C-alpha cells in the first residue's frame, strides 16, 4: 500500500493547480448556447496549454499522460471548480475509439479537430426501442454504390445540436436479427457528418426544463463507405471500446465534484448561512456522515481501480460499482440538501433546485443502476445469464 503520489505526480499536480488558478474561467453565462460556446472556448484554452487531451498519446497531439496523471488532471479540474471541456464525447469517447479502430485517413481528418474544439461529437447509440438493450438497434444502413443509406431514429443524443460528427451504430445485417439471438452480428459503426441532408435534430427537454439532449432523425442519409469504423458488421466490438472509455477519467472529476457539493452542504448544515447548525440533529448528522463515508469510498475505489488497470491491464469491479455508488450518493446528497437548505432547494432557478432535479438522471444515464447491478453480478461475481 502506498497512497501517496510520486514526486513527478506531485509536481504535475502543482503545475495544474497553478495553471488552473490563473486560467480558470469565470462563471458561465445563463444562456444555453452561450454557455456551450464558453465551454468550447475553455477547451481551446486547455488545448493551448496542451491540456485538452492529457490522456491522448503524443502521436495524436496529446500529452501522453499516464493513467494516474490523467486521474490527477480530472481531480484538479474538478477541484478548481472548472468545467469539463465542451467536447467530452469527442475527447473521451470518439477520439480513443478512433485511435483503436479508425483508418489512418479517419485519424488524420478527425482527431486534430477534436483536440482544438473546432468540431464536436455526439453519440448515436440509443434508440426509442434500444436503451439498455443495445442489440435491439433498428436504424438501418443499406449499401448503395459507394455509400450507405441510413434511416432510423436515435435518442438521448447530448450535444447533437452543436455536433459536427456522430458516433453512429446502425444495422447493416438482416433487420430480422434486431433483438434476436444474433442481434450483435449485423451492427456497423459509422462516423456520421451531422450536416448531411436528411439529418434532423429535435431538442428533448429534461425535467429540469433545459434541453441537454435531443432526438436524432435520420431519413435516407448517405454516408460514404470510407466512414465505416472498424469494418462492416464489427459495430458491437467498436461500440464496446467507446463504452469502456465512458467512465475512465470522469470518475475522478465526478468524485471531486461530489466532495465539493458535500463540503458546501456540511458547511451550511454546521451553521454557516443561518441554518442554525442542523448538523447537531443526530438524524442529519447520521445522513451527512454516511455521505462523507460514501464520498471517501468513491475516491478510494477510483484509485484502487486504477491500480488494478496499471498492474494487471484490466479493471477490477471498481468501475461498475463506482458508477452505481456515485449516482446513488449524489441523489442522496441532493435530498439531504433539500432538508438542510429548505426552500432554497425548491425554488425554480436556485442551484440546489436544479441539482435536485438533475440528479434523477444520474442513475439512468450511462447505463441504468439496474444494468450496473447486472454487470456486477454477471461479470464480477460470475452469476449465470439466462
Amino acid at each position, binding site marked *: *500500500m*502506498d*497512497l*501517496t*503520489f510520486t514526486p513527478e*505526480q506531485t509536481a504535475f499536480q502543482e503545475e495544474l493547480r497553478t495553471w488552473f488558478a490563473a486560467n480558470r474561467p469565470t462563471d458561465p453565462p445563463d444562456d444555453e448556447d452561450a454557455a456551450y460556446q464558453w465551454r468550447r472556448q475553455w477547451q481551446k484554452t486547455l488545448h493551448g496549454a496542451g491540456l485538452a487531451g492529457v490522456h491522448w498519446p503524443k502521436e495524436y497531439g496529446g500529452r501522453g499522460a499516464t493513467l*494516474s496523471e490523467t486521474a490527477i488532471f480530472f481531480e484538479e479540474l474538478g477541484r478548481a471548480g472548472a468545467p469539463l471541456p465542451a467536447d467530452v464525447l469527442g475527447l473521451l469517447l470518439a477520439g480513443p475509439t478512433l485511435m483503436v479502430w479508425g483508418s489512418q485517413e479517419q485519424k488524420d481528418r478527425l482527431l486534430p479537430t477534436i483536440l482544438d474544439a473546432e468540431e464536436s461529437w455526439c453519440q448515436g447509440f440509443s434508440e426509442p426501442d434500444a436503451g439498455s438493450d443495445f442489440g435491439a438497434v433498428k436504424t438501418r444502413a443499406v449499401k448503395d454504390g459507394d455509400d450507405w443509406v441510413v434511416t432510423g431514429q436515435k435518442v438521448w443524443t447530448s450535444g447533437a445540436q452543436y455536433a459536427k460528427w456522430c458516433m453512429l451504430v446502425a444495422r447493416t445485417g438482416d433487420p430480422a436479427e434486431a433483438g434476436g439471438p444474433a442481434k450483435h452480428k449485423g451492427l456497423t459503426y459509422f462516423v456520421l457528418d451531422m450536416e448531411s441532408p436528411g439529418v434532423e435534430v429535435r431538442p428533448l427537454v429534461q425535467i429540469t426544463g433545459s434541453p441537454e439532449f435531443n432526438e436524432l432523425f435520420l431519413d435516407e442519409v448517405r454516408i460514404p463507405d470510407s466512414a465505416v469504423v472498424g469494418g462492416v458488421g464489427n459495430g458491437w466490438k467498436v461500440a464496446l471500446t467507446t463504452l469502456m472509455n465512458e467512465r475512465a477519467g470522469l470518475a475522478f472529476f465526478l468524485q471531486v465534484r461530489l*466532495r*465539493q457539493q*458535500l*463540503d*458546501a*452542504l*456540511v*458547511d451550511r448544515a*454546521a451553521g*454557516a448561512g443561518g441554518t442554525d447548525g442542523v*448538523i447537531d440533529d*443526530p438524524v442529519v*448528522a*447520521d445522513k*451527512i*456522515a*454516511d455521505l*462523507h*463515508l*460514501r464520498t*471517501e*469510498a468513491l475516491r*478510494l*475505489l477510483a*484509485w*484502487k481501480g*486504477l*491500480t488494478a488497470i496499471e*498492474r494487471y491491464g484490466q479493471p477490477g*469491479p*471498481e468501475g461498475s*460499482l463506482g458508477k*452505481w*455508488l456515485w449516482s446513488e450518493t449524489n441523489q442522496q446528497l441532493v435530498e439531504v440538501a433539500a432538508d438542510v437548505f429548505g426552500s432554497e432547494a425548491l425554488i425554480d432557478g436556485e442551484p440546489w433546485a436544479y441539482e435536485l432535479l438533475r440528479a434523477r438522471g444520474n442513475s439512468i444515464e450511462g447505463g441504468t443502476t*439496474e444494468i*450496473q*447491478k*447486472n454487470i*456486477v*453480478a*454477471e461479470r*464480477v*461475481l*460470475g*452469476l*449465470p*445469464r*439466462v
Partner: protein
Amino acid sequence: MRFELSEDQQEIQRTARELLAERSSFTQVRAAGEARREDDALWAELRDLGWPGIAVDEAHGGSGLGVIELAAIAEELGRAVAPVPFLGTALAGLVVQHDASDGDRERWLPGLASGELRGAVTLPGDAVPVPGASDEGLVVVAGADGPQLHAPGSGVAVAVDAIDPTRGHGRVTVAGAAPRDGGPGGGLDRATIVVAAELVGVLQRALEATVDYVKDRKQFGVPVGSFQAVKHEAAQMLRDVEVAKVLVANAAWVADAGDQAKLSEAAALAKAAASAAGRRVSAQAIQLHGGIGFTWEADLHWLFKRAQIDAVLLGGAGHHRQRIARYAVPRAAAAV
C-alpha cells in the same frame, strides 16, 4: 499510488489463508462452536508462529510489523471464523503499546505478544459481549481519559455465553465517558481498524459462499443466481464489502504511514462501513441461501454470529457515524 498490499504483505496473507483453510475449516469451527470451546491446539500453533505479537514492538517481544500486516491476518481469521482468542489479545496489544504508559508496556506487552496472556478491549459503559474478556486475562477499558488496564483477577469481566460460541466472551461493566478520539496515541483507533478488518474477512467469506450457492441451487429449472432479484442482492453485497474493504485498507495505511492527524477519522470511516456492511451482508447471505441458510446444519450462522459481535465491538455504525459527522465539519469549513 499503489492501492494493494506489497509482495511481503500478500505473502503474509496467503500463508495465513492456507494455514487456516487447513486448520480452521468449517468442520473444525463447528466442533469448537458446538462444544463452546476455543481450539487450544490451533491457538498454540498460532502463538508459535508469532501471530499475537505481529504488531507489537520488537523490544517487547513482538515482530514490530504494522497495522496493515495485523489487519491482513485478522481478515483471514475472520474469513475462517477461527475459534481462537486472537482478536482481543491483538487489540489489547495495540492499545497498551500506543496509549498506555512505559511501565504498562513493560509489564503487559511481552505476555500479550507471546499470547501467554490473553487480552480484551472495550469502551466504558458498553454492554457488548467482549471477545477475549475473562478474569484470567488483561481487560482494557478505553475511556475518555485513556485506557484503564484491569489486571487478571480483577473481577471486572464476567463470562457470558455470547451468540458466537466459537470464542470466549465477557461482559465488562465499567462506567465512564467514551473517548471522542481514538486514544491518546492512536491505539484505540488502530484496534478499531483491526476489528473492522476481521469483519471484512467474515463478510468476504459470506459473499463467496452465497455466490457459490446461488450458482448451484436450481429452482424453476435454472440456477437461482440467474434471477435478477437475486443478482441485484448479490451485487449489493459485493458493493457493501468493497466499500468496507477500501476504507479499512486506507485506515490501516494511514495508521502505518499516513498523516496521524487523519487517523481517527479514517478509523471511524472504516468501522462505520464495516459495521453497516456486517449486518447487511451477513443477513443477506442467509436470505439468499433460503431455508437451508437458516439451519444449524449450514455453516453460515458461524459467520453471521461473529459478524453481529464485530459489528458492535468498539462502537457500531451509528456511534462511528456520529464521530464522522464531527470530523466533516472543520474539513468542510476549511474547503468552502
